[in-house]
């Protein structure tokens, strides 16, 4: 590994580069979870460490980043969403940002599909697409021996899978790490939601017989995989809660694909 994830890492900030007259190729859109959620901050760090390892020309917005407005829009608050979006788009224009990489599929979806309606002219990649491309072109090499023999099940985030038909890129990355993929009964376009989408992340579920995240966690446990992998901060929260509920958090790891890759860099 190029940088120990336990120590501070150096992440270029857009405003600093701009002051020096530099224009990085990519904006790494960290997202609220990457910035503030204790668990997902580690994923943001893991992904940044991969970018540093690759020597990618990128920067983050830092304190200039603000919510995409996704939870507001999906909770019906179109006004708040559009105010957020227009503010963010102005920042994209100010820094002449053309390419954006996100770790969160919700940010990915809204930036890619919905911001153009409000004037954004950006190419948006989810980090799993970016990593798959880097591996395919031979720029990113991984040490297969680190994870070899372990089985992993991959939970498709709705906003990556059904919403944007990205099923293969994350699986390609998992396979390239030498992991054995054990699919859940409902996978790819049939995958069951973790229960967090559409702003559900931020509220209690309506009353029912069961929590959605428990249903999905049980399905993941049926695969007998050593690792439950995902590529979304909200899925991470839900599945981690599910593992805790089932008292399995010691035995089974819930890791993000970025963490799997960051741990196998050579």
């Amino acid at each position: 590994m190029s940088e120990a994830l336990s120590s501070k890492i150096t992440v270029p900030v857009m405003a600093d580069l701009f002051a020096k007259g530099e224009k990085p190729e990519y904006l790494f859109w960290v997202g609220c979870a990457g910035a503030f959620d204790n668990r997902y901050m580690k994923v943001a760090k893991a992904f940044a460490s991969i970018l540093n390892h690759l020597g990618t020309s990128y920067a983050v917005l830092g304190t200039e980043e603000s919510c995409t407005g996704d939870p507001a829009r999906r909770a019906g608050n179109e006004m708040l969403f559009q105010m957020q979006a227009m503010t963010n788009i102005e920042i994209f224009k100010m820094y002449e940002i053309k390419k954006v990489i996100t770790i969160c599929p919700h940010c990915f979806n809204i930036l890619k599909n919905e911001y153009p309606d409000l004037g954004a002219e950006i190419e948006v990649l989810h980090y799993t697409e970016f990593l798959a491309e880097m591996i395919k072109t031979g720029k990113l090499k991984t040490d297969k021996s680190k994870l070899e023999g372990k089985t992993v099940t991959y939970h498709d985030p709705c906003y990556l899978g059904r919403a944007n038909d990205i099923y293969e890129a994350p699986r390609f990355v998992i396979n390239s790490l030498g992991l054995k993929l054990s699919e859940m009964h409902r996978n790819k376009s049939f995958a069951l939601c973790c229960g967090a989408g559409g702003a559900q992340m931020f509220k209690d579920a309506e009353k029912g017989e069961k929590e959605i995240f428990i249903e999905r966690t049980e399905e993941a446990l049926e695969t007998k995989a050593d690792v439950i992998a995902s590529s979304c901060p909200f899925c991470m929260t839900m599945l981690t809660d599910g593992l805790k509920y089932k008292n399995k958090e010691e035995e089974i790891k819930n890791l993000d694909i970025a963490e799997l890759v960051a741990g196998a860099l050579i």
Partner: protein
Amino acid sequence: MSQIIFSVLLAITIGIFAYSAFRIYQLFKLTKPAYPVKDFGKRIKRTIVNAFLQERIFRNRIAGIMHALVFWGFCMILFGSIEMVIDGVAGTERALSFAGVVYDLLMAAIDIFAYIIAILIVIFIIRRSLLNIKRLHGKELSKKNHIDAYIALSFILILMITLAGMNIFYLAGNSDTVGIYPVSSLIAPVFSSMSGDTIELLHNINWWAHIILIFIFANILPYSKHFHIFMSIPNVFFSRLTPLGKMTNMDSITKEVKLMMNPETAFAAAPEGEAAPARFGILDIEDVTWKNYIDSLACTQCGRCTSVCPANITGKELSPRKMIIDIRRRMKDKGNHLVKEGKDYADGKSLIRDYISTEEIWACTTCNACAKECPLNIDHPTFILDLRRYLVMEESAAPAQLNAIFSNIENNGAPWQYSNQDRLNWTE
């Protein structure tokens, strides 16, 4: 004589159907715009793949194959029905037989499909009545919905039996027949001992029964869930081409936000001459888009959407199928009054609360499983999100926890209450 009777019956059929179609057209006039329909090339391709090749239906393998066989059979039989109408009006016999080999193959396909569909319909009746298939028994399905299903199945079964009967007695009564009838030709010899008159009578009974049933069925359909037969292909054709994750932009809001964010116009009076939309989002039937309404007409209540809904699977109130059924129910209850009595008609009810509870609306995770599963590309999430837009922007009636994230996003640019100054803490 029979030509006159037939022509009169046909005229009545077309007349009643035209009346039903006109009423539906008037209901469509009440709806709001959804999106411009363009990209006809893509739409034609999608219609071929989703409708004619039945792509989505195969997500449920066994039920999918059964449905596809019925659909493809109907496509073939449609040509036979057209021929019957020509024969009936013009007094011709097998007017399309000039097509030679094509005609032979068409007749062969129709003959085989008639028996296959008849068997499948019997299986469908058994499945619906005896097997406990969960998706066919949601609590949103009333007794009327179940009767509706059995009426349609019975009609189709009798249509197939009379179609087979026509073929059998046509073969039994004629030595020089046109067309190929692989299955009926095996059965026809059983009746060869009957007199020529009896066979002709039986043929005519089947012929007339078949075509009259089609006429009746066609006029029941606009009032049945099996309007599906007419509306599903248009519904696929008109379905949105954007990724499932994309929500439609509210341009009226964009205008307001732009005025607000521009320092020159922020405090100015609203420009004159531009009427603000009557309402943000959907409260009642006059707020739905034409796509919401065509979705509700095309839905045959198969329940695939509800069977994959994470909220429904875990026992929440939400059923995407119910939402779509509710659109059609509300249009029936209120739309016709709006047409007759004008835009100001009110019955003291609305789609939200009297038909769809706020609990259902807030239970959706917008995971798009329903929309992905629907073989007709019905778009449930777009509708649900428009209901939320009404609740939030017109009534400020979001659940308290969501109001909290709204103020967090407004105040500190994140759904959580953290300072923007801490946005780089993850690098530590």
